[in-house]
């Protein structure tokens, strides 16, 4: 028995030693993972180096550089060196990712082995994607169960988990927590300067800190950076502002539609109130802010131009990078809430505080069902998301790779890359609290998702531009949604929407 124990202990030491040796070796060869070295696993650098894909060509359609496009290209280059495969990467603007895959998909072709897109494409894309083989699913130990569920449909995983996204509030800690600023704000407005818990407070503070040099860097600063550009994910920004007013736990059965009747809820007073707030926000975004896409928002907040921002992690992580002018001067918190929430059952406002997290899920990637290189493709994706790459990627804001593994929700991961411990803690607490919330909203994942979101973007963009009032704009969106339901089939939409509603109503 003792001998057995000794042998197994010796074997463990040797095994660990060999892993460390690999880590050093690969870390030296690939500076991207220098901090961690290789992390053993089915898709580690060591494992991939033992594959030989010489003479095979992998084609990938991904987003434009940098967000998701840069890590795709970087890992493609690494994958080529390790396996001998040739990887051709095509970069496509966000708005065209859907059609660039759908056009050949519908024509029965597969010009790309791997297609990147957004998680909410799953319903339209799943019939053209190859299911993720079980051996790859089995090795996803660190991926949270909810994230695996998101990447799957009817229990089959179609999207390989590479990113996990939520919308939350980012703020300038050096201003909000600054006693001098607090005193000045109090003196000028009679109100407390603190992390805003309602959108009204957000608007008041953003307006106050708009258009003057409050950080003394010689440049003007502004209130808020938001994604307001039509067709550039602005619909997600609007949903983030809407959940506080329109997601009511006491009226389960749908946030976007009434699941029973499939009546769109998009023009109810809750959404209208959110859009009214958003129209006001045009006054406290930087000049040209009404045309900000996601990249602009990341650069604006990450570059220290605004007091607030809310959307994906990217802007926060960018702000925390060592080269950022505001490194360790930012804080994370839940999306603001509201002092009232619309109760569609009663047809009236409920005067109580309401807050709801919005899970946006974000980037997703799949392998074309008709690809002739599925083996190489899944190995590439597995390599993309391996432990070493993932840890390096999540620390680079512009990469757009955000936490989705259980390990990511520990503060240590972030303090190791230079974050102050209180900021790291507030960040992981914010993410973790969203997971715990029972009043969450998940994005639409129904047939025709793109049509619904495009109609919403058009309507809200008209309101932001002053072409229509918030009520008129959302009435127009409502009419368009009814028309889409008619074309796609209300029952088809209901079947798919029911899955999301069950998650929102905490039944899954």
């Amino acid at each position, binding site marked *: 028995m003792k001998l057995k124990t000794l042998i197994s202990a010796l074997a463990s030491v040797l095994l660990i030693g060999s892993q460390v040796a690999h880590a050093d070796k690969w870390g030296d060869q690939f500076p991207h993972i220098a901090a961690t070295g290789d992390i053993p696993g089915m898709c580690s650098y060591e494992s991939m180096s033992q594959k030989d894909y010489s003479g095979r060509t992998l084609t990938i359609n991904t987003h434009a550089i940098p967000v998701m496009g840069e890590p795709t290209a970087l890992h493609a280059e690494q994958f080529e060196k390790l396996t001998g495969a040739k990887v051709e990467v095509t970069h496509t603007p966000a*708005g*065209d990712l*859907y*059609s660039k895959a*759908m*056009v050949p998909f*519908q024509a029965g072709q597969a010009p790309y082995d791997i297609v990147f897109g957004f998680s909410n494409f799953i319903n*339209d894309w799943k019939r053209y994607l190859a299911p993720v083989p079980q051996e790859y699913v089995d090795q996803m130990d660190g991926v949270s169960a909810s994230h695996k569920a998101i990447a799957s449909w009817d229990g089959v995983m179609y999207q390989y988990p590479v990113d996990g996204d939520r919308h939350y509030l980012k703020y300038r800690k050096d201003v909000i927590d600054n006693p001098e600023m607090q005193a000045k704000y109090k003196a000028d407005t009679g109100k407390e300067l603190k992390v805003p818990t309602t959108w009204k407070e957000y608007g008041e503070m953003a307006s106050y800190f708009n258009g003057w040099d409050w950080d003394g860097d010689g440049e003007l600063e502004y209130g808020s950076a938001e994604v307001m*550009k*039509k*067709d*550039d994910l602005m619909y997600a920004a609007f949903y983030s502002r809407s959940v506080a007013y329109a997601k009511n736990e006491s009226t389960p059965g749908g946030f976007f539609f009434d699941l029973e009747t499939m009546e769109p809820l998009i023009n109810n007073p809750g959404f209208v109130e959110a859009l009214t707030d958003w129209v006001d926000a045009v006054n406290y975004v*930087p*000049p*040209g*802010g*009404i*045309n900000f896409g996601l990249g602009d928002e990341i650069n604006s907040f990450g570059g220290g131009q605004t007091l607030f921002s809310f959307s994906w992690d990217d802007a926060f992580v960018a702000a925390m990078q060592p080269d950022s002018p505001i490194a360790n001067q930012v804080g994370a918190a839940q999306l603001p809430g509201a002092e009232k929430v619309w109760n569609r059952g009663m047809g009236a406002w409920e005067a109580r505080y309401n807050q709801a997290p919005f899970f946006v899920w974000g980037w997703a990637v799949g392998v074309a069902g008709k690809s002739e290189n599925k083996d190489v493709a899944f190995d590439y994706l597995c390599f993309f998301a391996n432990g070493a790459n993932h840890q390096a990627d999540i620390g680079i804001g512009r990469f757009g790779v955000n936490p989705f593994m259980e390990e990511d929700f520990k503060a240590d991961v972030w303090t190791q890359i230079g974050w102050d411990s209180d900021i790291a803690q507030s960040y992981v607490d914010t993410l973790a609290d969203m997971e715990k919330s029972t009043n969450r909203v998940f994005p639409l994942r129904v*047939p*025709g998702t*793109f*049509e619904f979101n*495009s109609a919403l973007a*058009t309507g809200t*963009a*008209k*309101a*932001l*531009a*002053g*072409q*229509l009032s918030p009520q008129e704009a959302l009435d127009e969106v409502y009419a368009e949604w009814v*028309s889409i339901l008619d*074309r*796609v*089939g209300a029952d*088809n939409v209901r079947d798919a929407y029911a899955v999301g509603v069950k998650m929102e109503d905490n039944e899954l």
Partner: protein
Amino acid sequence: MNFKHKYVFLLPGLIVLIGILIFPIIFTVRLSLSGWNSFNPGLDFIGLKNYIRLFTDDPRFWQSFFRLSFLAITTVFLQYIIGFALAHMVWKDIKFKRFFRVLFLIPMMTTPVIMTVIWRTFFHESLGPLNDFLSIFGVQPPWLSSPGLAKVSIIVVEVWQWTSFMFLLMLAGLLSLPKEPFLAAAVDGASPFKKFIYVTFPLMAPISIGAIIIRLIEASKIMDTVFVLTSGGPGTSTETSSFFIFIKGLREFQMGYAATASFTYLIIMIISLTIIVKVLTKVLMRE
């Protein structure tokens, strides 16, 4: 030659014509009668449903069409005036004539998308050089954030890019004019203004009509400038017909409906341009 042989020789051209012109049009018409979208890919038959929707329930299409008409007419009018003026200037014996002739052609030789990206940077409201300069005078216009100014920005870019083309055609026209009418006008003691009104302009009328029509056809397809500069925004204030069709077809994947809009747009353009040619001929070529 045998009568049938003629047709054999015509056949390659005919096949190419059918392949690249007739077939796509017929396919577009067929597609326009289907409900092809992301959920139902395929050529099902839904009759005139898409056309009824377009004509009775889609003000956005018609708004984008009227916006396009405004942008096309305004830009081509400005291009014609400026292009003609510049051509007239370098037609005469002035210093550095050759230099100016090449200089005025440069915008046309640049790539529209790349130049629009540069213009977008130029118009950028917080980082762009234009507002940086204007801030000296205390103004910072929202070039791309205001519905009105966004249209002005598009007009500026289009006029800058394509005035060269108008300049080239007008200069070629001026250089080909006979000298006799000008000599006769000089003998009669006509002033430069009268020479222009009564000799140059009437002689240039056929070329002007051709140039205006060519530019109107091109301008009616404005897409790259809108896509890069404003993405149709703010709101839908700079959305043109091509951009609308692009959104419906390739963003929302309503292929059937986008085909309906495309075919309808094609018919409208054929009718409109035919009328415009008739009107221009009547106005500019009256004796």
